[in-house]
């Protein structure tokens, strides 16, 4: 009886351990390969340990793609998206959570329902529109349309409904604060935990966006890291070392964010699903 429990437990850990290895190894592999010179990346048997080609790979990388520009674009788009999403979604979430107004429930339903629309349905006319606006190869089409995203409004409404006491708002009103004052001085400071979740999730989504910049920012100087990497990947004179290092440098910020904020990321990304 006792020994069968131990066997069961060992088996459980073995399966979970193997799965963890399967999930983690590709990440380790990226960083290992980023340190091998271009002509030695692909080897049999494969590399399991770090090499000495990091500096050379970096020189190759920056000579092939405008890496600094691409990094700057990725970071700039992600940060401006994050800040504007936090601002506009907290504002809308506050209204849906704490005001009673005509058509509130219908409008909220509309926000939630809009999340179910597949992204590809509007992509062709949207592209034409961006051409007409002159927004191609700028940050604008990747920041402006999503500034007040439905998911963020849902997240903030949920949070403020449950965690912002009505008494606090009433007290602030009696103290003479207007609606904007309450938003700025009460709601924003008190909504920080949810704003952090929304901010991190938005940043990660923007950082990883590929289809958007692929269509809207075709120029290599104007585009983001994922698209620049895919262009490097499909080049004939591709240098494997440069590609691997570029990949590692694209992943590194995400992994760092995840190490520090995994709780917020997991709760944020599964928020709608777990509630539903």
């Amino acid at each position, binding site marked *: 009886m006792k020994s069968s429990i131990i066997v069961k437990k060992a088996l459980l850990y073995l399966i979970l351990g193997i799965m963890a290895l399967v999930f983690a190894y590709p990440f380790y592999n990226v960083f290992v390969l980023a340190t091998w010179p271009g002509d030695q990346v692909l080897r049999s048997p494969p590399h399991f340990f770090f090499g000495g080609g990091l500096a050379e790979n970096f020189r190759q990388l920056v000579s092939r793609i405008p890496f600094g520009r691409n990094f700057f674009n990725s970071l700039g788009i992600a940060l401006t998206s994050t800040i504007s999403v936090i601002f506009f979604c907290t504002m*809308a979430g506050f209204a849906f959570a704490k005001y009673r107004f005509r058509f509130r429930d219908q*409008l909220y339903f509309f926000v939630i329902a809009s999340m179910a629309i597949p992204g590809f349905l509007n992509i*062709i006319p949207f592209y034409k529109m961006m051409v007409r606006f002159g927004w191609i190869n700028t940050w604008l089409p990747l920041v402006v349309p999503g500034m007040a995203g439905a998911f963020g409004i849902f997240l903030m409404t949920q949070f403020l409904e449950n965690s912002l006491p009505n008494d606090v708002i009433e007290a602030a009103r009696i103290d003479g604060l207007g609606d904007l004052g309450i938003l700025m001085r009460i709601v924003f400071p008190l909504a920080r935990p949810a704003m952090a979740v929304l901010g991190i999730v938005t940043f990660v989504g923007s950082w990883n966006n590929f289809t958007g910049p692929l*269509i809207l920012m075709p120029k290599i100087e104007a585009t983001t890291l994922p698209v620049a990497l895919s262009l490097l990947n499909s080049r004939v004179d591709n240098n494997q070392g440069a590609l691997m290092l570029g990949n590692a440098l694209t992943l590194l910020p995400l992994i760092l964010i995840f190490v520090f904020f995994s709780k917020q990321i997991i709760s944020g990304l599964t928020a709608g699903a777990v509630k539903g």
Partner: protein
Amino acid sequence: MQTIIRKSRKQGWYPYLFVSPFFILFCVFGLYPILYSIFTSFFDWKLIGTSAPRFVGLGNYTNVLTQDPFFWKALLNTVILLVTGSLLQHFIAIPLAIMINSKTVKGKEFFKTSFFLPYITSTVSVVIIFGVLFDTNYGIVNWLIGFVSDAAKIRWLQESFGIKVVLSVVLNWKYIGWNMVIYLAGLQAIPYELYEAAMIDGASTLRKHISITIPQLLPIIFFGVALSIIGGMQIFEEPFILTGGYEQLGGHQNSGLTAAYYLMFTAFKAYRLGKGSAIAWLIFLVILTLNGVNRYVTKKLEG
């Protein structure tokens, strides 16, 4: 009294102001283009050249459904990948969640986070990594296979079967952790008393999960499968990057060509906006139908 009324009237339009950014942006960048794409789908509309859009009625739809050599192929590929890459993984994610949820397992958070990490990595990075892992001559997969088999090396990225396998592996690897976290939350909501009764009856572990866990999880399974259908029918980035972009059109025998990939090719490489819009609405219909099936099956299972 006077002041309160005035105040409440003044705050009357603040909530509308606060929610207005979403509605303005959605109408301009979401709703209007969607309606416009219905309109576009009835025209022969080219992005380049000077020829004016020409009304063709349902011509784009009939062309795609009856004459186009790629559309059905792409749709079939998408459905295959939907099953092998997105749906079958629920059979892995549920047992994984049960294992992690079991009382004897320590380090739940560690396993949870390490399984979740692939979900937040960019598709380009993931595909570049797996391209190396599945490399014919130097990849770790063929290297490991070499220990147990002397057969010729599998050309994963050059053969149609191999491309589907690699794409399925990538999709499983990327999304299992996400599904597992959802199921884990579902498991933690099942009342423990349900299991106590079964334990008194001396039911085996497997029996317990089949007759208690799975029925209790059904609403979450429905939801997870619905999201898999919506996501799986839109798969574009993974095959696009893995097989080498618009020019390759899904690699060997177009085996990596998915419906969304073909939509993107038609619109942004062949520059046929009307036909592309028709493809978009056809994919949307398929998603609606499959989710209808999902709802029907779930209802049946719930009894």
